[in-house]
């Protein structure tokens, strides 16, 4: 895909046509002071993103590094100056905290992360260049925002248009400028969104920069042959667009396909052979369809429509794939199908259409009283008021995902409605404060999974949080404390002394933890069910710590000891030999572990995926 000679020829031809167009316009007397030349812009500002590797206040490994001039390319390796996301590969899904996929999710929806970047001018995009400098191939979808056209959000006008999408696939590990063929659009844009899937990545993907190349005037007026025929163009148009058409009840009287196929000698009451099947069987068959196909099928025949709109099929509702089209008014349109709703995923929703707080509240009241799972990851419409509505109405929630809900300023609603049945709570990158969190922890004694990664306001009181967890959350299985810089080994003791069922602990980049007081040894001794331990950049991890982990945690599957200086080969071999279930081991930047060690271990322990990231020469 990157920089093929044909592409350059096309671009060149395009420029020539632009110039030609300009001259013809002038001769026609069409006064146009600006020639339709190609303009090349660097990303200006990262306006929104779903996750990042780096600290919130840092400039290392953070999403905002996508803006500005690329500075690593053409080097290849793991550099702080790039934009890095939080995960890679299948490992996070395989961990104890991994969640199961929703029934009825369209198979073509694979996006896991996104980043939105603005440009200094609005252009008709001709080409987009993404500089990928480590583990390329994560980008699966590119969208453009039509800010001018999309202001009337309830009119059904689409704000976001897919310019390109593709299935994720493994990619050669080399730096590249990724410049896919874009779908032509009829509006100018200065906001581009990249959606990523990390499944096939060998390690974190790193994006160095992005450039938008486009014209000020509609490109079709000067050329309409630039876009080469693309096999997957049709797919883009068949996208999940016009969901509203599908979701709203259509008059199916005239177009009863199944009726027409029915032999004449069967009475109309049993009009369709298919419906002779028992209801349960039909339901079972229909349960394999995704929501889009269900809606389409419903339009074919009255009988099928009845089955397709059965609320039992909408117990799991994943609207994340349709985030470009969901608005609160559309949610109300489908409310009658959602009477049995148990799991609802509204992640990323709110950007493609307007989410009215009152409408959303109505929807919650109508459909979500018994809701068990609610996912609102990266929903900018969720502020303090909406949070208040959610947790006051959905008081039976078992799982709540507020991942990257950065617009919630005040979590004090948790003090009023502490969600006693909660088992899973994701507060990654939110502004949760200690007293609000404490109310939840004290009320939800069944809490199993808690993600507090990069919660900046908790940093000063993280030790108190862990004390509460130790006192009230005896059933805790997974705890993510990524980048809780002020976490100490004393605080950690509250967890390992009380939460013996712990299966997963991520204390990556908690750089204040010192191993000298044997906190890792005690952790291993007390939490024998541990399956995943991430000690990323805890520089003091020693041989004895690894040996004790290997001895006491036989179930261990994933271990990350990136950046420790103290560990020797022998200790790592001991881990590899002792932990029979080990599938992932990250020994990147461990002093004293060479690439040849890793190579020989990979051969000797083929079931373990061993990671060793690298940097070459220093890049400025």
């Amino acid at each position, binding site marked *: 895909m990157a920089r093929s000679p044909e592409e350059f020829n096309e671009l060149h031809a395009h420029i020539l046509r632009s110039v030609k167009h300009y001259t013809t316009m002038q001769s026609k007397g069409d006064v146009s002071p600006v020639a339709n030349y190609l303009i090349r812009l660097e990303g200006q500002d990262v306006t929104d993103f779903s996750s990042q590797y780096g600290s919130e206040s*840092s*400039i290392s490994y953070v999403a905002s590094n996508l803006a500005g001039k690329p500075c690593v390319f053409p080097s290849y390796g793991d550099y702080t100056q790039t934009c890095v996301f939080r995960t890679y590969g299948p490992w996070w899904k395989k961990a104890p905290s991994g969640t199961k996929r929703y029934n009825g999710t369209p198979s073509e929806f694979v996006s896991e992360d996104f980043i939105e970047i603005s440009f200094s001018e609005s252009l008709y995009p001709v080409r987009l260049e993404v500089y990928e400098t480590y583990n390329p191939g994560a980008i699966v979808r590119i969208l453009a925002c039509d800010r001018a056209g999309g202001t009337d959000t309830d009119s059904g006008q689409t704000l976001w248009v897919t310019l390109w999408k593709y299935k994720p696939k493994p990619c050669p590990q080399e730096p590249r400028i990724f410049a896919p063929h874009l779908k032509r659009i009829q509006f100018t844009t200065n906001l581009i969104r990249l959606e990523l899937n990390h499944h096939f990545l060998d390690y974190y993907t790193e994006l160095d920069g992005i450039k938008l190349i486009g014209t000020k005037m509609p490109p079709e007026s000067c050329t309409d042959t630039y876009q080469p025929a693309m096999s997957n163009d049709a797919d883009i148009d068949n996208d999940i667009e016009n969901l509203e058409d599908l979701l709203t009840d259509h008059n199916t009287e005239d177009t009863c396909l199944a009726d027409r196929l029915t032999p004449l000698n069967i009475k109309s009451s049993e009009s369709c052979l298919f419906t002779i099947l028992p209801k349960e069987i039909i339901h079972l068959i229909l349960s394999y369809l995704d929501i889009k196909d269900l809606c389409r099928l419903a339009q074919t025949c009255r009988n099928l429509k009845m089955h397709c709109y059965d609320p039992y099929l909408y117990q799991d509702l994943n609207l994340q794939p349709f985030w470009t089209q969901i608005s609160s008014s559309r949610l109300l349109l489908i409310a009658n199908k959602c009477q049995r709703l148990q799991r609802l995923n509204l992640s990323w929703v709110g950007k493609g259409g307007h989410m009215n707080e009152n409408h959303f509240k109505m929807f919650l009241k109508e459909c979500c009283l018994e809701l068990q799972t609610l996912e609102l990851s990266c929903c900018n419409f969720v502020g303090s008021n909406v949070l208040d509505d959610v947790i006051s109405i959905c008081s039976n929630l078992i799982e709540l995902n507020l991942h990257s809900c950065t617009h919630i300023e005040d979590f004090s609603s948790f003090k009023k409605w502490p969600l006693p049945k909660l088992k899973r709570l994701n507060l990654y990158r939110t502004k949760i404060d200690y007293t609000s969190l404490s109310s939840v922890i004290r009320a939800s004694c069944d809490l199993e999974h808690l993600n507090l990664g990069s919660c900046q306001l908790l940093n000063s009181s993280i030790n108190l949080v862990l004390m509460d967890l130790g006192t009230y959350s005896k059933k805790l299985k997974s705890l993510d404390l990524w980048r809780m810089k002020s976490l100490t080994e004393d605080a950690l003791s509250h967890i390992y002394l009380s939460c013996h069922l712990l299966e997963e602990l991520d204390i990556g980049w908690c750089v204040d933890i010192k191993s000298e007081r044997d906190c890792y040894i005690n952790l291993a001794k007390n939490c024998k069910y541990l399956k995943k331990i991430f000690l990323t950049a805890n520089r003091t991890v020693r041989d004895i710590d690894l040996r004790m982990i290997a001895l006491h945690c036989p179930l261990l599957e994933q271990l990350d000891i990136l950046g420790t200086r103290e560990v020797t080969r022998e200790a790592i071999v001991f881990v590899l030999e002792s932990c029979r279930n080990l599938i992932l081991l990250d020994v*990147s930047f461990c002093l004293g572990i060479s690439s040849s060690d890793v190579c020989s271990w990979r051969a000797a322990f083929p079931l373990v995926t061993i990671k060793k990231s690298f*940097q070459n020469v220093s890049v400025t």
Partner: protein
Amino acid sequence: MQSVAQYGKFVVRAIAAGIHNEFQLKSPFDKAKEPLHLVTGTSGFSKSVSKSNQFSKWTFGDDAYFISRNKVADVLGVADGVGGWRNYGIDPSSFPRSLMMACERMVRTGHFVPQSPANIIAAGYSEMLEQKVLTLGSSTACVVSLHREERTIYSANLGDSGFLVVRDGEIVHRSTEQQHYFNTPYQLAMAPPSGDGLWLSDSPDVAETSSFKVQDGDILMLATDGLFDNLSEDMIVRTLESLHSTKEEEKIQSAACSIAEHAYKLSLDPDYMSPFALSACDIGIDLRGGKPDDITCIVARVTHQSDIFL
């Protein structure tokens, strides 16, 4: 070192006065409030040329520097790595280089306040903790930023590197050095995680800060102790004053070269009473000659911003 420098002050003032008056006539009055910027030149020497460690951008031996600009400010910085780390198998140049690179990125990406260069040092230092590879070592640091609109330089200095501002052949502003004891400056450090308290490590907060209004024609010089220990201030001022009437980058660069070269030659002279030797004598150590050390010197001339485009 400071005491030696005082001697030449009055002589130089007399020489420079003439040039200054002439320049004043040329400057139109409306330029008085125009934004300023820096035209810079850099030079330096590594103490051991034969060491042949790979040439890196922005380093001279164990010294490192950076020059960075954004819309509101021009920022310069130097850092001098502490050589003692070599005995522990750690390259002493990697810490200052990493620190200066981090500071440069803070400036380039706009994550800084021009009025507070101490925060640039502190942020650069904490940025080093965000790197996957922990860079061990320690260094001094001196960062100066020119706020263009405010026509003011703000400085932060930790240790024995330093800067001075020359106007009309006279030092009008300078940093003071910070030492724990003789030849042991304040320093930022990243010690091995399991290490004991053997290493000196000062917080970025102890950096000495200052601000100073500058004007077109002022010459700013930022250097590591390798320069200040070998060149007396009147030697420095004599070389710098010639720059008052020029805006050409080449001349500023050649001045930086000649200062660094001068310091380098003197540092190898066994009979020269260098400022370093003099201050050693002050505390009763009998020492003669120059002080062989890595030398880094950034010379910058304060110029009207509109002159860049001339």
